[in-house]
């Protein structure tokens, strides 16, 4: 059964179907979307039952897609190749969950619902497609397809400064995809398919790109050449994905986009789109250019540490709740870079774990910000105090989300961070890729994280009740809001208490990642 194609194309088909329904049936659109989400959830559960964690890539589907003979240039080959492994499977699961939550969160969108939900469905398919595609061209198509719905979702349904935010988001990400495109073309020209030994068949297959012997001797990115082209290619590709992550200094699109985006879109942005950055680094950048990974390891780790500290400092200085959460995302995604840079099993597993846990927790955080914004249309921290005495259930979820995010043991965030620290500290004596002072400095990020969250709680939720914003009613959580927050809280707790649930999937990938691919790079340690 083509599980993955179903996951990817059911929402796309539903989006097309949505377009055929007249816009006046406004109630139909969220139900259709919800139905698609439920279907995806069922498919994903079925996949979980069939997934064997030790096996590497599975659920593979391979079909010829583009095949062009270019005479002396050889043959152009792009395939429809999708599969999942320990890296992508948890992220696909996360996508299914978050898209479901996002649909529930969008239930009361008022403006042009037809367009909104159609875009949401296209986004859904594109995100899952990006996580599954193993053909670079296919990935790129999905990657670009994510961009457009996002642009419109922010630009049409966003806040007051939505035009600025959406164009900034679009241009930034476009810059990233151009960098990726350049390297993709370079790789395409340099890699030949090993399937037909006698003739030169260029391929976009990422799995072929991960083997240095598939590089055509004398080509642009030939692994045996002594030139610096491969390092350049690593840097370009890395920056391309680092923009998406986002890492400092490529991050300023994020706070603006988050602040202006509607709640559901913020959730998707933080929980899923940022993960494409980390995923890209783990799937494309590191395995294809292990030599560059070794050469630039302290840069990668350094950018990670700077993101952690700088993001946290900016969060501390934020006056807007959503901006604070956005910067905390920058800080937390910095940990991902630190873990990857260590190139140890613990660090890489921790990075993947951190991506999943941040997906869950940041979704909660943005939903929480949305709950308040729905009621008062004001996000300024200084305009609130003592909310705890009026909104008890809401405050309980705020405490859960904040403490989960600042890395309290028992929640998923702690596992990811602690594994990353294990890896980063170990790297010093194991492969010497990350200098010891970097993880030490990074621990300060934990303290700053505690500082901005606790300070926010102290200012907004504790103290005497006062709201300096106009509001009709300041109710506690509604049933719909409960339905969004509770599953996420349970997931954060579950993966915090029983880490092996997730690590059983992740570990084999992390071991292969560090074991086979990295042994190639370590040898060429400059």
């Amino acid at each position, binding site marked *: 059964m083509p599980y993955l194609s179903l996951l990817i194309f059911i929402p796309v088909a539903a989006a097309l179907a949505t377009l055929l329904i007249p816009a006046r049936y406004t109630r139909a659109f969220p139900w259709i979307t919800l139905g698609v989400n439920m279907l995806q959830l069922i498919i994903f559960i079925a996949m979980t039952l069939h997934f064997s964690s030790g096996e590497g890539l599975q659920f593979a589907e391979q079909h010829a897609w583009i095949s062009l003979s270019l005479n002396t240039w050889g043959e152009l080959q792009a395939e429809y190749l999708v599969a999942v492994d320990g890296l992508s499977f948890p992220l696909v699961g996360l996508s299914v969950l978050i898209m479901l939550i996002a649909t529930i969160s969008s239930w009361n969108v008022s403006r042009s619902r037809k367009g909104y939900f159609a875009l949401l469905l296209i986004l859904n398919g594109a995100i899952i497609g990006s996580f599954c595609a193993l053909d670079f061209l296919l990935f790129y198509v999905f990657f670009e397809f994510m961009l457009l719905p996002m642009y419109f979702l922010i630009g049409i349904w966003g806040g007051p400064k939505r035009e600025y935010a959406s164009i900034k988001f679009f241009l930034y990400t476009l810059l990233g995809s151009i960098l990726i495109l350049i390297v993709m073309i370079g790789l395409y020209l340099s890699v030949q398919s090993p399937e037909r030994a006698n003739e030169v068949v260029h391929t976009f297959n990422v799995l072929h790109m991960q083997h240095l012997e598939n590089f055509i001797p004398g080509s642009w990115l030939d692994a045996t050449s002594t030139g610096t082209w491969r390092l350049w290619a690593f840097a370009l590709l890395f920056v391309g994905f680092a923009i998406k992550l986002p890492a400092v200094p490529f991050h300023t699109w994020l706070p603006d986009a988050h602040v202006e985006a509607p709640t559901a879109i913020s959730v998707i942005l933080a929980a899923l789109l940022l993960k494409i950055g980390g995923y890209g680094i783990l799937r494309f950048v590191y395995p294809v250019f292990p030599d560059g990974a070794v050469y630039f390891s302290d840069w990668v780790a350094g950018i990670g540490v700077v993101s952690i500290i700088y993001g946290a400092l900016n969060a501390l*200085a934020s006056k807007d709740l959503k901006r604070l959460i956005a910067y905390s995302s920058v800080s937390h995604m910095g940990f991902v870079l630190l873990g990857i840079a260590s190139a*140890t099993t613990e660090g890489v597993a921790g990075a993947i774990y951190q991506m999943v846990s941040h997906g869950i927790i940041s979704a909660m955080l943005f939903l929480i910000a949305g709950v308040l914004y729905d009621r008062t249309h004001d996000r300024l921290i200084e305009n609130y105090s003592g909310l705890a005495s009026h909104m008890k259930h809401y405050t309980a979820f705020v405490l859960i989300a904040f403490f989960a995010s600042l890395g309290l043991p028992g929640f998923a965030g702690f596992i990811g961070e602690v594994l990353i620290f294990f890896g980063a500290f170990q790297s010093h004596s194991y492969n010497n890729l990350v200098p010891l002072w970097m993880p030490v400095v990074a621990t300060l990020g934990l303290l700053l994280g505690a500082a901005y969250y606790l300070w926010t709680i102290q200012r907004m939720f504790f103290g005497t009740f006062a709201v300096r914003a106009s509001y009709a009613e300041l109710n506690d959580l509604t049933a719909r809001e409960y339905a969004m927050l509770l599953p996420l809280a349970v997931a954060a707790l579950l993966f915090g208490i029983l*880490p092996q649930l997730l690590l059983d999937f992740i570990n084999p990938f992390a071991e292969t990642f560090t074991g086979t691919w990295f042994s190639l790079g370590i040898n060429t340690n400059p």
Partner: protein
Amino acid sequence: MSETITIPVLLVTLIIPLASGILAFAVKGELGRLVPIVSSVLLLAAYIVILFPLLSGTQLTEQFSVPWLSTGNHIIRIGIVSTPVTRLMATVVLFVSAMVHIFSIGYMAGEKNTGRYFGFLGLFTFAMLGLVWSANLLITFCFWELVGFCSYRLIAHAHEKPIAAYAATKAFLLTKAGDIGFLIGLMILWTQSGTLELAAVTTTPGTWSTIAGICIFAGVVGKSAQFPLFNWLPDAMQGPTPVSALIHAATMVAAGIFVLVQVVPVFTPDTRLIMTGVGVVSSLAGAAGAWLVTDIKKILAYSTISQLGFMILALGLGEVSGAFTHLLHHAFFKAGLFLAAGSVIHAMHRAAQHQPGFDVQDIRNLGSLRKQMPATFTGFAICAAALAGLPGTAGYISKEIILHAAQQQNLWWLNVAVWAIVFATPLYIFRLLWFTFLKPASHNLTVQEAPWVMRLPVLLLAAGSLTFLFRNGHLNSFASQILQTDLTVPAGIVIGSLMVTVASLLIGWLTRNAKAPATDFLIQTFLDGLNLLLVRFILFIATLARSFDKKWIDRFIHILAYGKVALAHMAGFTDKYVVDGTVHGVTLAARGLGGITRSVANGKIQSYLLWAIAGLLIFITWMLY
């Protein structure tokens, strides 16, 4: 009675407090009124579960461990380590917690949010027990953080009061600062020995071990409120008084000492020397603080800092069993003191509820309570005697052991310090006793003795602070198992400490009517000032980062964008004037050229004839040459 009690018994002691906590959170409405009683019964049951095999001398030897997290070639296991040390600690924690639960029935009666209160109380106890039983340092760290979280939420129980919210935030952040050190220490230990199993952790002597030790100790400094991270503890008095009892006796601050007791064997001499130094400074500063402030709870808080410093000093000297015994004894008498103080505050609140400006926690406003609250007075006095280390009390034994250990070191500053503490402790606790219970009252309020649910825990804890419980019976054989030292100390020390104590009490008596100093300079002026400066500095850096983000990165992006737009305008200009200009130029040129040719082909037969002749002439000329 079977000889071995299996691990399920220990697990039960862990599950009961958790269940009690969850129950308290979950039950709402009318049934919620039963929560305090049910929770107390549950905790008592847990205490009995652990006490029963302990008293019957049954061995609880089985170890239990399941893999929790594995990645790479490392496995973190969740395990229960059952040694005399952990069993004794768990017993004391459960006892104090049960007492605090029972006391809270009376103390929190009629209050709002009792569900949340008892919920976090149960969770707090669970977290502390998890920390005690844990066989792996990473799991210990997990529970360690959980303990911090619970104490945060309990300190901020009255969250409507801004000052309580502030105190909770401060407590969490200062302890978190220490925890960062703990985490780094764990990482170093882990890279060194490849495991975090308590039984297997080793260090190779060297700088790294010292650094690892100092880092772990930093965590303890935060948690156990030692210099320079101790200023959260006096502020934490904003929490309900029973919570303070729990924090000070059995859970939060005790966690630090307990972890040290377990890991101190792998510490290097350098680390231990630093520990001794920190212990000396903290115990002296704490004693001084206790003498200088007048808030009844703050005096006790400073006293805790001092006592914990005393234990850390002992641990630094390698006197592990002395320090651990003192921790257990301290749990009894400090919990008793706090609960008695809670009774006093509770009673005074009731008595003075029609006098809004009356500060019931200022000892200068109290007095004569001995007659009005005799049971509370008895309990308080016994616990105070134990704190002062009077013979016949539990505090006496452990104090003598630590004194003996300090005496054996040839460090003059250490000896000065320990004797100063022996002198100062009776002084400040006598002052507290005098002002609260003995001195004639300056007010004429009628104060009622606390209800029995509040008196009973105080008296039980006071009984626990007396020696006979420890010298006789099964607990003693148990204690001697871990002490592994005889309780005999040289006569010189016994006599000397007795004389110092008596002198201290005498001076206390003589100066009893002197005006009480009432200053919190240590905390408010010095440490809080430093903290504030640090916070200001961090906030300043944060604002700097924010403006950097806005002014530089975003401006750079904007300049790029403007540059692009300018480029686009230039391209537009080029398009309009250069490219289009060329095109227009070409058309113009073509038109001009066309004009010329047109003027040639003007349709006049004469000019055609002229061109034809000219052409012919040129042709002939060309042919001839």
